[in-house]
């Protein structure tokens, strides 16, 4: 222990956020009398420049060596104040924050109670701060490379930005082609530019970029390490097609014995593909893939005398012996851009999606209106005998969004606009059709959105306010049962076709990513960002960033913006070439360590190892911490029966006085 603690306590008003509930003057007076407290002050905004200056001057003039800031959550401003006291010459870890805003003034109405609680929290902070130790953070080299998981528009954009900045980027895509959901779209709202036209160049870019290593039809299997030094293992699934030999000619697919027999994932099952296939004509890489489940040879072991594809492939690219391969590499940062799943319309059985072929989803409509789609861009329905153009078209919005009955309280943010866009496209193709859109609210918040919505309404698309309760069949017609809530008129609307404006949902397989990268979910089940406002692309895991709809529903411009944001965040450690290792790591007292190895068993980061040391002539086994690997969680120390391993800043001798202070203040 060095000098006797001289503590300064700084109580923030936070405007009236704290001061209106906590009697800060009383707290100040109280804090002044606490043991070892030399100064206690209040100020309107401690985090402001003058507030910080106040602290810095006291440190210099009053010789303070420990600082307690009673203000907002340490999750908010701990870095701010650490930096401030460091600038005044104090070790940045000589700081303790008392959270008297989020966990006091904002949650208690009674001034007396809130004031008492603030006193307690400050007392505990003073008790702890006196015993904090000076820590020095260390720096380690960061691997100048990034991993981007998911190659939809978010992943593509992020990868391109990082690669353009000059860093190696691994872009891992689960499906055979990059492009993601955007590739399936026809036109984009509100500008109506062709989705493929603006996306395809980027897809090509990312495949040809010298800094991008595209790993399509691949999945991330393992991620270890920490920011700056992640160890990644990727499984390259067997395509059964030699990647280097395949020329993408397509002879195999047309000659396949089961050609065009399987629903095409890209066409939402409305089109067909062969067992060997290219997901869509512009797919990148333009390499064929055999779906082992539909391939006769792979699923049954026999395909005629010999597989047709093998016979016709001039390049000799078909290889049924191919196995999954694993590649391992190191990266400094990771961007998660795994996208979303469209809401499964079967979960709203009242809309008859499973029963009536002419009830389709918005994604299906995208394919239907697309020139590259199954109908070549014609909007056609089946009347049971032939394909005809529908006369009466209804859209239903908020299917699977804003709907507690399916567990989705959130708004999917794109459905209002895509239904409007699709109504417009139908109007273009079927000038005489009657189009109506059933809606709860219309949210047209983006740039040019309201104008577009207006335009669509003027194109004789009827907006009917009311959520249909049911769709049933009457003769050849579909009946949409609803109530026009503006006129309180019950409706039974006979139509030829219903488009369900399905919302966006978190991917069904996101659990795997959560486990790999230690990510959490927000209440909407999308990935949780580190802070909803200020750190929207960061996650709780340092060095892992979010882009696109995996973090929450968003439209293309927002997705691209977030992808660029994530890329710039990921570039920070790469560009700097170093990352700072948290100083709050565990430390072993080798004299008292009994060498039982409990900590080694527990450490999730394998940061502890047993080493042999010589203690007065005896060889004994003791635990030792690798500081670069330790994350300071402290799980080891709660299991240590001799208290020999302790996380710095959260040592027993720092926490027990907090407990004592809180307990004593009955």
């Amino acid at each position, binding site marked *: 222990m060095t000098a006797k603690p001289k503590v300064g306590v700084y109580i923030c008003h936070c405007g009236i956020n704290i001061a209106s509930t906590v009697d800060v003057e009383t707290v100040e007076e109280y804090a002044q009398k606490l*043991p*070892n407290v030399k100064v206690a002050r209040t100020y309107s905004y401690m985090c402001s420049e003058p507030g910080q200056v106040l602290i810095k001057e006291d440190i210099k003039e009053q010789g303070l060596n420990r600082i307690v800031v009673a203000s907002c959550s340490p999750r908010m401003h701990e870095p701010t104040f650490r930096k401030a006291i460091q600038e005044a010459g104090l070790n940045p870890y000589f700081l303790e924050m008392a959270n008297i805003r989020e966990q006091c003034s904002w949650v208690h109405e009674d001034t007396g109670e809130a004031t008492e609680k603030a006193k307690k929290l400050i007392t505990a902070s003073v008790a702890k701060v006196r015993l904090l130790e000076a820590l020095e953070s260390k720096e380690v080299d960061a691997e100048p490379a990034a991993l981007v998981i998911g190659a939809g528009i978010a992943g593509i954009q992020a990868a391109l930005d990082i690669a353009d900045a000059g860093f190696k980027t691994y872009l891992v895509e689960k499906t055979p082609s990059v492009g993601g959901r955007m590739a399936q779209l026809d036109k984009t709202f509100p500008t109506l530019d062709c989705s493929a036209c603006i996306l395809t160049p980027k897809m090509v870019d990312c495949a040809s970029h010298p800094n991008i290593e595209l790993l399509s039809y691949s999945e991330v299997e393992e991620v270890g390490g920490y920011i700056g030094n992640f160890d990644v293992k990727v499984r390259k699934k067997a395509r059964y097609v030699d990647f280097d030999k395949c020329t993408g000619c397509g002879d195999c697919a047309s000659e396949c014995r089961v050609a065009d027999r399987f629903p095409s994932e890209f066409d939402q099952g409305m089109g067909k593909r062969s067992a060997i296939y290219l997901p869509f004509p512009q797919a990148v890489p333009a390499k064929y893939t055999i779906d082992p489940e539909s391939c006769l040879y792979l699923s049954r072991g026999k395909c005629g005398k010999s597989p047709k594809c093998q016979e016709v492939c001039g390049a000799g690219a078909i290889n049924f012996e191919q196995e999954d391969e694993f590649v391992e590499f190191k990266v400094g940062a990771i961007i998660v851009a795994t996208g979303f799943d469209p809401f499964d319309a079967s979960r709203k059985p009242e809309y008859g999606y499973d029963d009536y072929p002419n009830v389709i989803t918005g994604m299906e409509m995208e394919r239907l209106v697309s020139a590259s789609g199954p109908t070549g861009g014609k909007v056609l329905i089946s009347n049971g005998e032939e394909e005809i153009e529908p006369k009466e078209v209804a859209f239903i919005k908020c299917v699977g969004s804003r709907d507690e009955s399916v567990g989705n309280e959130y708004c999917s943010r794109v459905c209002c606009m895509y239904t409007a866009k699709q109504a417009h496209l139908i109007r273009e193709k079927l000038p005489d059709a009657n189009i109506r859109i059933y809606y709860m609210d219309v949210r047209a918040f983006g740039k040019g959105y309201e104008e577009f919505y207006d335009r669509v309404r003027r194109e004789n698309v009827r907006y009917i306010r009311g959520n249909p309760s049911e769709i049933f069949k009457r003769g050849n017609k579909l009946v949409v049962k609803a109530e026009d809530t503006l006129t309180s008129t019950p409706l039974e609307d006979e139509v030829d076709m219903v488009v369900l404006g399905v919302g966006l949902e978190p991917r069904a397989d996101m659990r795997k990513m959560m486990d790999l990268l230690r990510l959490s979910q927000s209440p909407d089940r999308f990935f949780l960002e580190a802070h909803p406002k200020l750190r929207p692309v960061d996650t709780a895991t340092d060095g892992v960033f979010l882009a696109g709809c995996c973090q929450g529903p968003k439209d293309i411009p927002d997705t691209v913006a977030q992808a660029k944001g994530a890329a710039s965040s990921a570039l920070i450690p790469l560009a700097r070439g170093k990352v700072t290792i948290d100083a709050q790591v565990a430390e072993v007292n080798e*004299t008292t360590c009994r060498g039982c190895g409990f900590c080694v068993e527990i450490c999730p980061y394998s940061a502890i190892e047993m080493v042999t040391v010589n203690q007065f002539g005896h060889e004994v086994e003791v635990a030792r911490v690798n500081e670069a690997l330790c994350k300071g969680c402290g799980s080891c120390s709660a299991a240590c029966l001799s208290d020999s391993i302790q996380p710095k800043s959260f040592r027993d001798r720092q926490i027990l006085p907090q407990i*004592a*202070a809180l*307990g*004593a*203040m009955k």
Partner: protein
Amino acid sequence: MSAMLLNKEKWPDFVGRLTGKKLWAPQAGGDGMRFAPVAEGEVPALDYGNTRVPPKQAVFPQTETLFRFQVDGEKVEEPKLEEEAVLLGVRPCDARAMVIVDKLFSWDEDDPYYLKRRELVTLVGLACTEPGLNCFCTSVGGGPASTEGLDLVMIDLGENYLLEAITEKGQALLAETEDLLEEAKDDVAEQKEKIINESEQKIKRSVNTEDIPGGLPGLWEDPLWQRVSASCLGCGTCTFLCPTCHCFDIQDETEGFDSRRCRSWDSCMFAEYTLHTSGHNPRPSRRERTRNRINHKYNYYVDKFDVIACVGCGRCINLCPVNIDIVDILKQVEEAL
């Protein structure tokens, strides 16, 4: 009025008369664990061997607050020691032990806490008629009816207790209870003599301690210490339950901002007892600690105060979990001389 008879039927009245003072007597339940304050109206029974915890705790509590203070404050508060106490049924060995311990606490510096408590206490002894299996008081200068340290001694004569005042405090006690007592008849002395003799005969264990104090220094490096300490667990049973052990440790204990400085019994058998801040321990193993325990009682104390700091109560033998037997050790010492 120095030898009186108390009919056993009047024992409750006798106890009832001792009001205004804190009464201590061997605890009823709890396996005769210790001396405990007697609740009002309670009549302590005297049909016990001896308590496990010696009555030293009444004058030298296991934990004693020396003063209270406020962290960072001026206020210091000292205890007020003014309540008089009477200990009923103290065995002669335990009373002798207090006399032995007195020497230490009034040695170079007076210990005001201990001495004040001693001053306020009256020891009413009970001579032993049924000594325990491991009693060896007669080998260390005591006896089943020793009165050393007692203010009043009681001897069980069957129907009556014979009460003999030893000190003025004892006299005063007899005076206060005079109406309950009868003058002892002349034959009492004979009866008493007989009982004491019989009792002495019942003491089976003995060791000749004559040469031990002088001989111990020469046995400093003798292998016997390794032998007798090999099985020692290093616990505090022998010392905490010893009536003459008197070591203590002082600590400040804090609750919130209220703090107190207190002393608690310590034991030379504990490893930390001699552990230096540097990590060095001059008594690094159980061997040195066991050697110290015997030397302290049978050598250093004799050297300094001319008395063996062991009264032969047998507690350490009875309660040692691994049969470390001080009589056996002393015999081995004798043999090694």
